[in-house]
Structures are given as structure tokens and as C-alpha cells.
């Protein structure tokens, strides 16, 4: 095998990994704090991309400049949904007792978010139509050439940088700020957090905002690269779950690590076994990891 091919595949795998990590982080946070397996996570990614498109149409300008606006808007939608749909469920769980109650809550959340996902995909279909949309950006047509025949578009590099920066910002936010510490405390033990005077329901809203706006941001920066269409969220959500589970649910660093692991596994798997086995390899890696570490690489919340 040519060494350049191996190097190129490795770099591409890592880049995919960065994207997986960016989409996965929001998912893992929400689970860590609220124990919510959000199957509608991909739909916030999709909404982010469509809103950015709508903003570009309305205001003009580059999608990469308008992405933060759309992320905030989707984050607010996330808070609204949190208050409207999920809040009463958190309250019920606070009063429930026994291991089975948690399991029932899991099921209910999963079904609720599946219903939400069906609803949002169809909403996008009805509003924006089924035909894929290209969002023009100056970055997509710029190609950066590296020595050795390697080259990448500026948009992809931008996406990678934005994803990395938002992860770093999120990490520092959780480590340093008061709200960040409160989020971590709630994630570790909600009832203890409530006892020390943290308004956990407000923390849930903040977490929902961060999670959905991260998803929307990923959608906005990847939309110009991959085009925008109603089912785009469904195409990423399963992979995002695989990443989150492999990393350990609720574990931020675990998700980032697992994102790169799965990205690499797919790339190398495609290289050695043929590209029709890419996904098989990725899923087998997940099952193998869980065989040895039932709570993911870095261990997650039970």
C-alpha cells in the first residue's frame, strides 16, 4: 500500500472524527445532565443548517458568519421544547423510586424524542421542500493544497477549527464558570445539587440550550459542505449515538476520543476490508469496546 494513501486516509478519518465528536458532544451532555437519550438531536443539526440557509437568503452574506445566529435561535427552540415537553417528566422522576423508574423514564424519553424527530423532519419537508439545497460560501470553493498531493477545502478546515474551538470553549465554560460548575454538579448528583441551592431545572434549560445550539452550529458549518435537506439529521444521529456510547454516556472527553476512534476505524476499515464494510467495522469496534468496558472508554454515567 502506498504510504500517502495511508496518511491521507488517516487524516480524513481524523477529520470525520472531529465532526462526529462535535455532533456527539451535545448528545452526551444532555444525557449526562438530564439522562435524556435525545433521538431528535439530528433534527436540531438539520434545523441549524436550514435556518442558516434562511438567514443567508434573507440577509445575504456568508453562512459561516450567520451560523452563530442560527445556533442561538435553535438553542432557544431547544429551551422552549424543554419547558413544554420534558419539564414535567423531570419532576415526575424526582419523586419516583426504584431502578425500574429510571428504565421507564428512558423509554419514555426515547419515544418522545422519536416522535419529535418524525415531526421536525416532516416540518422541514413541508416548509423547505425535499430538494437538496446548496448554500453558497466563499470557503467551499477555496482549496488548500499541502505537499505530497494532499489537499482539503477551506470549508472543511474551517469546520474542523470551529468544532475544536467550540469544544474548547465548552470545556473551559464547564470548568471555570459558576453555571458550568453547577452543570457538572447536577450531572454528578441532581438531588445533592438541588440541596446546595442549585436550581436544577434552570440548569436543564441551560444544558438543553448548549446541546441544541452545538448541534445547530455543526449543521450550519457542515451544511455548505454537504448540502441541506430534510433527512440530513437522520443520517448523522445513529453515528453520533455510537460515538457517545463508545465514549461513555455523559462523558465529554470520552465522546471526543470516541469520535476520533470511530472516524479512524471507519477509514482504516474501509482501507483494509473494502469500503462496503466501513460501517460494519465501526459498529464492531463499538461492540468490542463495550465488551471490555460496558460503560464506554472513559466510563459514563450509569
Amino acid at each position, binding site marked *: 500500500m502506498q504510504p500517502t494513501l495511508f496518511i491521507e486516509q488517516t487524516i480524513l478519518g481524523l477529520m470525520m472524527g472531529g465532526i462526529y465528536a462535535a455532533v456527539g458532544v451535545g448528545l452526551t451532555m444532555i444525557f449526562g445532565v438530564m439522562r435524556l437519550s435525545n433521538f431528535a438531536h439530528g433534527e436540531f443539526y438539520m434545523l441549524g443548517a436550514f435556518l442558516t440557509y434562511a438567514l443567508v437568503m434573507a440577509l445575504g452574506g456568508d453562512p459561516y458568519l450567520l451560523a452563530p445566529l442560527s445556533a442561538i435561535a435553535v438553542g432557544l427552540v431547544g429551551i422552549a421544547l424543554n419547558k413544554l415537553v420534558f419539564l414535567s417528566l423531570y419532576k415526575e422522576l424526582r419523586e419516583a423510586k426504584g431502578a425500574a423508574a429510571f428504565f421507564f423514564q428512558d423509554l419514555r424519553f426515547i419515544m418522545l424524542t422519536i416522535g419529535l424527530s418524525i415531526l421536525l423532519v416532516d416540518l422541514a419537508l413541508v416548509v423547505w*421542500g425535499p430538494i437538496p439545497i446548496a448554500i453558497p460560501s466563499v470557503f467551499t470553493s477555496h482549496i488548500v493544497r499541502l505537499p505530497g498531493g494532499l489537499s482539503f477545502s477551506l470549508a472543511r478546515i474551517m469546520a474542523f477549527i470551529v468544532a475544536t474551538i467550540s469544544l474548547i470553549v465548552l470545556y473551559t465554560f464547564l470548568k471555570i464558570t459558576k453555571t458550568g460548575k453547577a452543570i457538572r454538579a447536577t450531572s454528578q448528583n441532581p438531588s445533592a445539587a438541588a440541596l446546595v441551592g442549585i436550581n436544577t431545572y434552570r440548569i436543564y434549560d441551560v444544558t438543553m440550550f448548549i446541546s441544541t445550539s452545538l448541534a445547530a452550529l455543526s449543521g450550519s458549518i457542515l451544511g455548505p459542505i454537504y448540502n441541506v435537506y430534510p433527512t440530513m439529521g437522520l443520517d448523522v444521529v445513529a453515528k453520533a449515538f455510537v460515538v457517545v456510547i463508545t465514549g461513555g454516556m455523559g462523558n465529554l472527553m470520552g465522546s471526543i476520543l470516541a469520535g476520533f476512534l470511530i472516524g479512524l476505524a471507519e477509514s482504516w476499515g474501509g482501507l483494509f476490508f473494502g*469500503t462496503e464494510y466501513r460501517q460494519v467495522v465501526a459498529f464492531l469496534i463499538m461492540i468490542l469496546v463495550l465488551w471490555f468496558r460496558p460503560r464506554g472508554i472513559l466510563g459514563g454515567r450509569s
Partner: protein
Amino acid sequence: MPVSRNLLIGLVAVIAIVVIAALLLTMRPIGPAGEETVKIGLIAPLTGSLAEHGLDMKQAAILAVEEINSKGGILGKKIELVIEDTACKADLATAAVQKMITQDNVYAVVGEYCSTVTLAVQPALMESKKLLLVPVSVATKITEQGYKYTARSCANQWMQTTQHADFIAEHLKPRTAAMLGVNDDYGREGLKIWGDRVKEKGVRIVAEEYFDPGTTDFTPQLSKIKAADPDIIFVVANIRDAANILKQAHEIGLYKQFSMLGGVTSEEFLQLAGDDALGLVHVSYFEPTSKRPVAQEFVQKFVQKWNRMPAMYSAGVWDAFMTLKYAVESAGTWDVDKVADAIRKVRFEGAQGTIYYNEKGQAQTKVLLVQVQKVDGKLRRVILYPESDKEGVYIPPERLWGS
């Protein structure tokens, strides 16, 4: 005993649901005037990841029915269109078709996009003697099973892929080729037929790669192809994937001759791919720029009604409805056996060209080979082959992109 009471409640509820629903479902009105209209069903993916193609089909079907009805219908009967969504799922489609057969009592069904769905609904339609007019699904098998009531108005996978392979081998003369296809029935069959055909002509296949439906990033596959350094790359994909493949190929520095099947013949594809589509050679069964009067009339009506250019799939649906019209008129009766025979004898000018069917009910449409070129600063498809329709000459990738 409360447990048994709950069970009783449950079972009674199930039965109540089923019985009430049965009443609701059967009591649906059976259409306004049963004698005056004939119902034709359309099944297409209007939701789900393939909904964009369902839209092409739906718009063409509505247009075709309006056209037929505005000219007095067929043998004095107006057509009533019954549209059902399948989301490209076999279970939804079989229920939809069963409803069309029993409740709507359709005369014929036009559809589907996905070959797997067409194959799933075919037995039920054939057994209840309903015509199945296939406008899009290309799987060769559909017309190879000896069903009398099945007819396909577009070129099948074998026809378009072998003609494509012959053209490539004879005119572009590559020594090596790479293949990239979607890992489903369309991609698998396409790669198999194409690969076998060009191998016979002495072309060496240096890479064969697949991607799963729903993939958005194709750089891993393209990077392997780049390393194999082929003269030409044959791709089987729908427009969304095809546009991304071309974009991403150029992104990683893979500037080679790409060639594709007919699925990418649409204006939306050119918009999505932009200048990255330059130089692409692909199959088309229908060119909206065609100078034939029938095609021009179809394009003009479609644009007037829907405010967009018709895609190839729309032309297939239009021709399916026209096949029905001409076959019934030439049979002089709605008798399904006679109409099925008449389909195999009609010959008419359709949107895709002169349409006539072989004994298996496969339309013998002409396959065009086109290249995306820039004409007056705008991207358009230029017909390279056959000679009778030729509009321009092939431009090799070196001249487009440099070396």
C-alpha cells in the same frame, strides 16, 4: 381477579379498534361518478430521504392527467389520479397498493422510484390484473419475470449501463477504470453490469468502492480511488450524492474523467454540483433542451405549471401515462388483456423520444450520452452520442483542469 379484567379490557379494546377502523376504512366514498372516470394510481416516495425524486414524479403525473383530461380523457373517460406515498418502504407500499386495488379500484398503477418497492408490489398487482407502468425503477428483473401486465417506460439498468459502457470503451478509450457505487440495488447492479462489460473490451478495473445510503462524506472512497490512479471513474449515485462526490473529489485533488448513469439528469444536480460538474459524462434519456416538438411541449407545460425544469424522472412518468393513453385508444377498449397487448404494439412520440415496447414490456428508448460543458458561461448538458442528436464534441479532463 383484576388481572383478568385488565386482559379482557385490553382484548376488547383491540377488537374495538380493529372493527371501528375497518368500518372507517371501508366506508370511504368510492369517488364521484363511477362510470365517468377511470382511476390511475401513482406510488412514489413523497417523504423520507428520497422525497426529492417523488416530487418529480408527482408533478409530472398531475400534469399528465390534466393534459389527458383537457383533451377529453381516454375513450371518453376522464382520468382520476390517486397518489400514495411509500417513503420507499415495502410495507407502506404494499398497503397503499392494496388500498388502490380494493378501495379505489384503480385501473393501473404508475410507480415506483425504488426498485425494491416495485418488486414488492408487483405480485399483488399482477394477480389482481392491474397494469403496472414503471416509470423510474431500473432493476432489470422487473420486466424479466414474464408478467403480462407490467411495462416500463424508461431504459432499464442493463440497457443504459451497457450502452454507457460501450460508449466509454469505444470513444474515451480508457485503459483503467475505477467504480464507485451506492451500496444498494441500484449501485450494486450498475457496477456489476458496467464492470463486466468494460472488462470484455479490455479495460482493467483498478478499484471498486461502495458507500452506504445516507453517506455525506465520500473522501475515504475517493482517496482510495485516487491512489489507484484510474483513467476514468464510473459512479452510480443519485443527484445529492453525485454532487457531493464531484465536489469532494476535486477537494482532495482527484481531477479525472467522471462518468455516471442517468439519475443525475436534472437542473437541481447542476445547481448543487456547480462548476465541479464540468466535464462529467453521463447517460440521459431525456434532455429538456431537445428540439423535438413533443419534448418541447412537455417542458413548456411543466415549467408553466411548476416553475422548474422537469427532471428525467418526470419525463418517464409522463411517458407512462401517454403509453396508457395510446394503448387504450389503439385497443379501442379498457379490457386489460387487450390493453396489455396493445402496449407491446404502440409506437408514439413521447417526451423521451419515440417510445415502443418489446415483448417483455420494456420500452426501447434511446439512450443519450451527454457531457456537462460550459456554453455561453452557463452549465449545460451537451449531447455527444448518438450521431443523430450530436450537439458537440467530447472535451477531455486535461483540457478542462490542466494536468
